[in-house]
Structure formats: C-alpha cells, structure tokens
C-alpha cells in the first residue's frame, strides 16, 4: 500500500511537470511567435489605413481648393497658352475702341501699335481692357499722343505679349 501511494505521488508530479513543459513549450515556440507576427501585421495594416484616410482627407480638401482656383484662374491659364497672332490682336484692339490699329513687331513678343482714339479716356479704357485680352499684354513705358483732328488722337504705344515658357508667337 505504501509503495502504491509512493508510485501515485511520483506519477502525479511527473505528469504535472510534463503538462507544464508541453503547454509552456507549445506557447513559447508555437503560439506566441505566430501571434506576435499576426499582431504586428495587424498594427501595420491599421496604421496604413489611418495614413490612407488622412491622405484622402487632405487630397479631398486640396481638390476643393484646386476646383475653386480653377474657376478663378482657368481663363488665365488659357491666356498664357493662347497662340498669338497680330491679326487677332488688331481685331481685339478694334473691339476695345481703337480705330485703324497698325501693329509693328519690335522684337520677340514686343510690338509697337499706332491707333486712333477719340480721347485719352478711350485709350485708358483700352489699357483697362488689357486684363480681358486673350493674352497677357503688358504696357511698356512708351506712349506718344498727337492730336490729328478734333476728337482724333493718334496714339503710339508699346505692348509686350507674355506667354508660357516654350511657346512662341506665330510669325516669330
């Protein structure tokens, strides 16, 4: 009886030890590394989802800004890219109040224009209308006015056509 009890106690102790070793080993070499790898990837994936969300929000906000800017500056970009030609400039001058405009090319993108106006105020109107021209036209510091008849002023002035880099006006 005593031997039996001794054997049972030994078996119990040994079993408990083996169970602990088995469970501990399985946990340390099997479950924990797999869980750690899975957990790290989950965190990375979630971080990426947050980053994408943040970028998407920023993109949406900037897209709205761009759309608003496009509304305001769409025409400006077109003006920069519009091909330039003197016939169209002369037509535009006539529509802006200049009579008999004569355009002489002075150099790359620079023109001397002679036209007849009823008064300096009409010429001033043309200068104001330069903002609505199909191109960016810059008035150079050169203006000559001659009274040729009552209500008739011959005015010579110089304009520079400013265009996007790489674009040259026709006939150059």
């Amino acid at each position, binding site marked *: 009886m005593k031997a039996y009890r001794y054997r049972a106690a030994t*078996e119990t102790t040994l079993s408990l030890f083996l169970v602990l070793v088995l469970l501990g080993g399985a946990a340390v070499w099997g479950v924990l590394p797999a869980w750690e790898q*899975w957990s790290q990837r*989950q965190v990375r*994936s979630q971080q990426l989802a947050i980053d*994408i969300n943040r970028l998407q929000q920023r993109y949406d906000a900037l897209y709205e800004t761009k759309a608003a800017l496009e509304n305001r500056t769409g025409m400006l970009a077109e003006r920069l890219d519009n091909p330039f030609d003197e016939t169209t400039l002369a037509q535009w001058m006539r529509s802006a109040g200049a009579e008999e405009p004569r355009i002489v090319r002075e150099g790359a993108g620079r023109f001397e224009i002679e036209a007849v106006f009823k008064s300096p105020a009409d010429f001033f109107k043309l*200068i104001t209308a330069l903002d609505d021209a199909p191109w*960016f036209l810059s008035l150079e510091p050169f203006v000559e006015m001659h*009274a040729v008849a009552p209500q008739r002023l011959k005015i010579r002035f110089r304009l520079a056509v400013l265009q996007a880099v790489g674009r040259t006006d026709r006939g150059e």
Partner: protein
Amino acid sequence: MAYSFIELRKKPLWPKGLERLWIGTAVVLVLMGVSVLFFRFDAQTVAAQIERRQAEKATLAAQLEQLRASIASMKDVASFARKVATGNELSADRWGDLLDLVPDDTVLERFEWRKDGFVMQGTTSDVKQLEQKFATALSGRYRLASSRASHGRFTMTFRTVKERS
C-alpha cells in the same frame, strides 16, 4: 478449496485525476495548434492587405503631390496676372496723372511719355503759370529740363528724377 467472491480489482495505470489532466492538456494543445494555424493564415491575408494598402498610399501620395504642383502653378499664374494688371494700371496712372494736371485753358497737341520723362506741346494762355503748376505738382518725381514758348505755343520737356541709391 477456498473460494473468494471478491473480484480482485486491478490498480488503474493512471489515477482518474491524472487522466483528466492529460485529456485537458491534449484539448489545450489542439486549440493551440488551431490558433497557430489561424494566426499564420490570417497573417498571410494581412500581409496581402498591407501590400495593397502600401500601393494605395503611394498612389495617393503621388496624386497629392501632383495636385499640390497644379495648385502652385495656378497660384503662380494668378499672381502673374495680378502683377501684369497692376503694372498696366500703374503705367496708365502715371501718364493719366500727368494729363489730369493740364488746365482747361491749355490745348495739348502732342504728349510723349517715356521711362525717362515726358514732353508736352500745345497752346496755353499762360506758359509761366503752366510751368509753375507742373514743376510744383511733380516736384521730386520730374524736373523741368527745357521749355520753349512763343505766342502761346509751348514745348516742355520734363525728366524723371533719379532716385539716389
């Protein structure tokens, strides 16, 4: 011959408690194996997801960069347009201000305006008064370089006063 009716009970190899312990351990080990398989399989799925998200993030970042460049270019064009418009307005104002100074009794026949000054030619009732008016009003910006007058006709040349650097 003596008989015993009491059956001899064999001693169990494992006591009842130990048997339960080993069954429990086996169940836990199977569960652990299943969880390892789950983690491994799901980690593969998550890795594919990470790859997709990284590609999405890179695309989005590139689009954002493009959008920023486009906005910057639009702002440049807007600022350029403002600069040109302001320059034109300023130029027009410069000679417009000069013409505004011409009194009602003066008729201009010629007016030339350049960067370095301006010339006026015409008729007036009082040349000296006209000279005085322009010299006073334009003091600091222009100086009278020459003035010729005969029988009410005049020619005046003003030069731009250079700023001292």
